[in-house]
């Protein structure tokens, strides 16, 4: 509200009466679009990964076995046939466990994988960055199968607090299913990275929309 006392004189930088146009740099818009599209694709990929990266269904399980109790006799391992070079994941059944005991039990699992045509491999539950827990299954770790019959034998080893030690003296069932245990984490990374890129594209879009009024000249200040 300026009233009759005030005369509108345009932009200061254009001199009296100027009506300068706001100039928008298309580079910002293109950058915003590219980053936005890349972000959207990444987020979609992440969502798809999360949807498909859930715990294996019963039809996907290729082998089942028991984790031998701490100090006990070896238990029955999982036997399955797989093509050479395929990624597999060992999942521990953790239904009914409280989260603290579950983490200790998962971390105490050590599995030996006998693979045709490849050196035996050891998978430790304590060596994964984070155990992915989906439903009543938690990941112990992943390995690459050899072509033919593979054997996975697991046992509990000493790990964690003494008061939880008794929980390791019990055998726990495990299963083997194709897939990479880090797929879930990767999916999360794609999702959040994608969302961040979309947000960044929004900021660039604001920059583009705001534009610049090109200076006619600049005054001197002290």
């Amino acid at each position, binding site marked *: *509200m*300026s*009233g*009759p*006392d*005030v*005369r*509108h*004189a*345009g*932009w*200061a*930088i*254009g*001199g*009296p009466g100027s*009506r*300068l146009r706001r100039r928008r740099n298309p580079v910002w818009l293109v950058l915003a679009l590219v980053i936005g599209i890349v972000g959207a694709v990444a987020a979609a990929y992440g969502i798809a990964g999360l949807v498909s990266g859930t715990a294996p269904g019963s039809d996907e399980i290729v082998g089942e076995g028991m984790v031998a109790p701490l100090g006990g006799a070896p238990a029955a391992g999982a036997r399955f046939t797989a093509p050479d070079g395929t990624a597999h994941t060992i999942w521990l059944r953790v239904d009914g466990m409280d989260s603290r005991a579950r983490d200790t039990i998962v971390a105490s699992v050590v599995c030996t994988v006998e693979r045709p045509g490849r050196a035996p491999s050891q998978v430790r539950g304590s060596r994964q960055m984070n155990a992915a827990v989906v439903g009543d299954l938690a990941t112990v770790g992943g390995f690459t199968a050899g072509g033919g019959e593979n054997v996975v034998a697991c046992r509990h080893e000493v790990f964690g607090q003494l008061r939880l030690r008794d929980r390791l003296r019990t055998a726990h069932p495990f299963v083997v299913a194709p897939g990479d245990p880090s797929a879930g984490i990767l999916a999360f990374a794609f999702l959040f990275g994608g969302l961040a890129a979309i947000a960044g594209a929004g900021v660039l879009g604001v920059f583009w929309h*705001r534009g*610049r*009024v090109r*200076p*006619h*000249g*600049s*005054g*001197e*200040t*002290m």
Partner: protein
Amino acid sequence: MGILRRLADRAVDKMDALGRPSEADLARLSPAERARDAYWQERAAAARVGREFTGPDHRLAGRVLQGPAGEVVHGVRQPEPAPDPVRDEARWEEVMLAERAARDRAREPYLAPVRHPITIDRVATRGVGGWGEVTDYLAASGLAASPHLVYGVYRVPDRINPGLTGERGGVVEWDVVHAAEGPTARAAVPVAVRLPAEQRWVLRSVGRPSVLDEDLVVAVTALAGVGPERMLGISRDLRMTSSGGGDGDGPGSVVARVVGVGFIVPAGAEAAAVAEVVRRAPVQVPEGAPSDVHIAVLEWDAIAQAVHPARRERPRMPSPFPYLPATPQELLRAYLEVVGVDPADTHGVQVTYDEPMDLLGRSTGRSWLRSSYGGDKIMCADGTARGRLAGGEHIVVVYRDRPEYVEGRDRFAAYAREVLRADLDRAGHMRGAVPKRTPALLRAAERVGDVVMFFSDDSAGSGPPPPRYCWPPAG
């Protein structure tokens, strides 16, 4: 019986005298508090002699607004039922101009015998480059070569597009008040000098009067030998900060703060002389009002509360109090025309703030209008309509004094009293005493408190800012 009565009267007088503040106590009061004290003294005196007190209601004592607006704003009486506000823009303009014409007629008897033309050109700047762009405008318009025709240049104290974050990339308007008939040939770009408020430019000890922004500029330019005829304007540097205002977050706040003062002088020897004075700071600034220079500070905010309470909308038309000016620029023009100020005598004119002021907190009306969003789109200087939060607390006019201006100020006082029914002079409220510095331990505790308040978003507990340009105190 007569003796007993005399004794009783004497006892009552002595008791009155005991409760009466001393001269020293009165000197510490603000003019408004002194006015209230005088009011109650007068009322008590009337009661003592059994005389009926005929003065105004006690709720108006020491207030800026008296008369009908004061009575309504301060709750002495209920407002009259008002006609529906005009929404149509063309009709709004028509009503506004008709009311304005009536106010102009009411002002005519008070006008100075010799007056100078007054034009207020409003220009848009990009928030980040206001000073530089305004100096460029002064050069492009040729006004920089005629500082004797320029009353002043100031940043318009409104917040444009208050819903957007920050002012840096937004639009900030400036008013150039001058007496030139039209643009002339391009002149050299003048120099804007900015003095940040948190820097100690003046040495003042505890209890001494603090420094008014314009006191500092007048002192600096006087030391540099730059008279008002060579000054292009003074503008307090304002910073507007927004917070809150989201869903469930209350109405939020848009706080205007003075963070410094700037002034514009022609380039060349004068600018060099000013730079030298600034370089040799601290500056010798006389205590109190400078001699030979008059700094008029007029209250605008109280009038705005009466005529423009919903700051996100245009002022309501018909005005609830059509005898009051609708904009601060109208009041500024009235002052210049009634006192008859010559632009060659002005150091600067401006509509600005003193203390930090929450513009949303000043706004009444519908609750959604108190948020950062909503309200009327109002035409800006660049020809684009935008949301606007109208601001401004004071009008400051700084000019070299002359005997004819003393008469002019008497005329303006009469105009304010008789027509506007208001006591607008705020100059006596400025330059409060420099307070004691908080001990280091308490300062540390305050800093912790500031951090806590920052995260709890509770700014209500923050104390008044320290005085500008003279903090910390000397000695």
